[in-house]
């Protein structure tokens, strides 16, 4: 199981490097799709079917939105000059970050024994044992997002509303007002 997840993660790394390095914008957007697709398959192996459904469908919609932004222009290839100083600085920072993260990730419980199995009073145990009795739902994840933690879902719905509102406000057609003044 770990080997399969490791192989899929290596594919995701290769896909994301290709997506960021290629010169053609259309290839970059298409190369991001297998990254999300393998992510969805990993979710299936990790025992999270709702997340896998969500990831696959969001992947398709994100491809449509990204292509909508770039493909109706005639500018699809770019040339970049390398900015060496910024590149060296970023790589040095990323290297230092990685060294510190190796120290921090050592303190996590090993992969396969999550922290809620070590403690009998953790909230996940309570949700699993009493979920059906207290809420009546068989899907414990739905019971959590709509009964135990319903207030968080209200906040998430508000965030979605606000982001769509912001996008609409930015893309309003303002030309009508200008031409009235001239």
């Amino acid at each position, binding site marked *: *199981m770990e080997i399969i*997840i*490791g192989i899929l*993660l290596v594919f*995701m*790394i290769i896909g*994301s490097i290709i*997506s*960021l390095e290629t010169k053609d914008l259309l290839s*970059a*957007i298409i190369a991001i799709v297998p*990254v*999300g697709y393998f992510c969805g398959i990993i*979710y299936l192996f*990790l*025992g999270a*079917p709702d*997340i896998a459904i*969500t*990831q696959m469908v969001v992947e398709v919609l*994100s491809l449509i*939105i*990204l292509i909508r*932004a770039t493909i109706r*222009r005639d*500018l699809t290839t*770019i040339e*970049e000059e390398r*900015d060496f100083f*910024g590149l060296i600085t*970023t*790589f040095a920072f*990323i290297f230092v970050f*990685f060294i510190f*993260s*190796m120290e921090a990730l050592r303190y*996590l419980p090993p*992969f*396969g*024994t*999550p*922290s*809620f199995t070590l403690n009998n009073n953790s909230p*996940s*145990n309570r949700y*699993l*044992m009493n*979920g*059906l009795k207290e809420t009546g739902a068989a899907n*414990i*994840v739905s019971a*959590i*997002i709509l009964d135990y*933690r319903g207030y*968080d879902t209200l906040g998430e719905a508000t965030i*979605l509303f606000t*982001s769509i509102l912001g*996008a609409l406000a*930015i*893309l309003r057609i303002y030309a009508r007002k200008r031409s009235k003044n001239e």
Partner: protein
Amino acid sequence: MIYYLCFVIFLIGLYGVCCKKNIVKIILGLWIMEYSVNLFLILLGYRKNGIAPILRRGDNIAEFSQKAVDPLPQALVLTSIVIGLGVLALMVTVAIRLYQRYGTFDITEMRKLKG
């Protein structure tokens, strides 16, 4: 070991945000970072040979709670993925507006053309 690979994906996204000059590549770098963070949260809750936290008819609840994976990070990541899509739409509209204003996707050009 798997945590390190997931963190490498996050660092690749970070490189994309910091070093690239095209707005679309910066957006792709942010999107890669979102993938890696959601994946990391689900990786934290995996139990060895675990089953999904969905009850079936006639299941023993005590046995189920010994075998199921952690449902709490899944509940948080579920909404996080859909909100990431909303934020992506917002970023893409900003990129479209910038292209209309300056005629290019290159961020170094946008610093030169003022007004």
